[in-house]
């Protein structure tokens, strides 16, 4: 870019093109949605299969898979922080939103283990997925995530009317529509912008 005289119209063009360039760098978050989406989907369907088809008494142990997600998130976020050359307000907001969500899930687990799990855990979890994906979708201005969040809220309400076993499957369905499908769409969009 050279220094030369330029008109107010040129100034506006520069401002506009630079603002668009920062937008391109927004969406590296799809990897987190994909990893957490698939882990939770496998855990939900895995628990359903172990409980109802295999009749394994400790079916809930499949949720230890979450540790894989935690280890991956810590490793990848440290690596990303070293490589990252820009901090956007959106990436910072997303980070704190999902840290807050993670803590909320953890505290909710403690509360529900004390007050009784049955018939409540999955509707509450799905409700929170809805909140997280809806807000993320609004931050990223990415409609499939916003829609996914709204669908998760609907699924949470429906799940409250079902037995615990079928709530697991509703959990898997919520993950599919609010995390996994929007994450692949986000990935496709990001690739098409950056290639």
């Amino acid at each position, binding site marked *: *870019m050279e220094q030369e005289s330029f008109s107010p119209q040129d100034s506006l063009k520069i*401002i506009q093109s630079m603002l668009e*360039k920062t937008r391109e760098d927004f969406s590296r978050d799809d990897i987190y949605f994909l990893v957490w989406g698939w882990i939770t989907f496998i855990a939900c369907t895995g628990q359903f299969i172990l409980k109802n088809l295999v009749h394994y008494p400790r079916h809930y142990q499949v949720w230890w898979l979450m540790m894989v997600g935690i280890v991956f998130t810590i490793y990848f976020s440290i690596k990303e922080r070293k490589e990252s050359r*820009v901090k*956007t*307000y959106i990436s*910072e907001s997303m980070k704190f939103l999902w840290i807050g969500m993670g803590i909320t899930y953890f505290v909710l687990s403690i509360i529900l283990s004390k007050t009784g799990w049955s018939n409540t855990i999955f509707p509450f979890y799905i409700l929170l997925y809805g909140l997280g994906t809806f807000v993320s979708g609004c931050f990223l201005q990415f409609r499939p995530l916003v829609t996914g969040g709204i669908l998760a809220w609907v699924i949470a309400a429906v799940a409250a009317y079902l037995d615990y076993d079928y709530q697991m499957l509703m959990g898997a369905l919520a993950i599919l529509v609010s995390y996994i499908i929007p994450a692949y769409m986000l990935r496709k969009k990001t690739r098409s912008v950056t290639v």
Partner: protein
Amino acid sequence: MFKELDPILHSQLRLAVMSLLISVKEAEFTFLKEKTNSTAGNLSVQINKLKDAGYIDVTKQFSNNYPQTICKVTKKGIEAFEAYVKALQSYMNPNGQ
């Protein structure tokens, strides 16, 4: 009535840098260089001018043994950018609306 355009901002590269920094929390020198498609030398000179005007904060640090220059827009920089955009609007709509 035409408002005067801030000479610090009315330069292609400095305006591009400020436009990038206004929409992010902070950015590294290499990010600015890539997005503005400028040379390191020229960018370095323009960043120093913005820094001297108090429009940006520049922090130098080391990451994995490599020097890193982090730039961040200041409150004064945001106000100057907003005033510049307002002045531009007076050129676009000289009759007031």
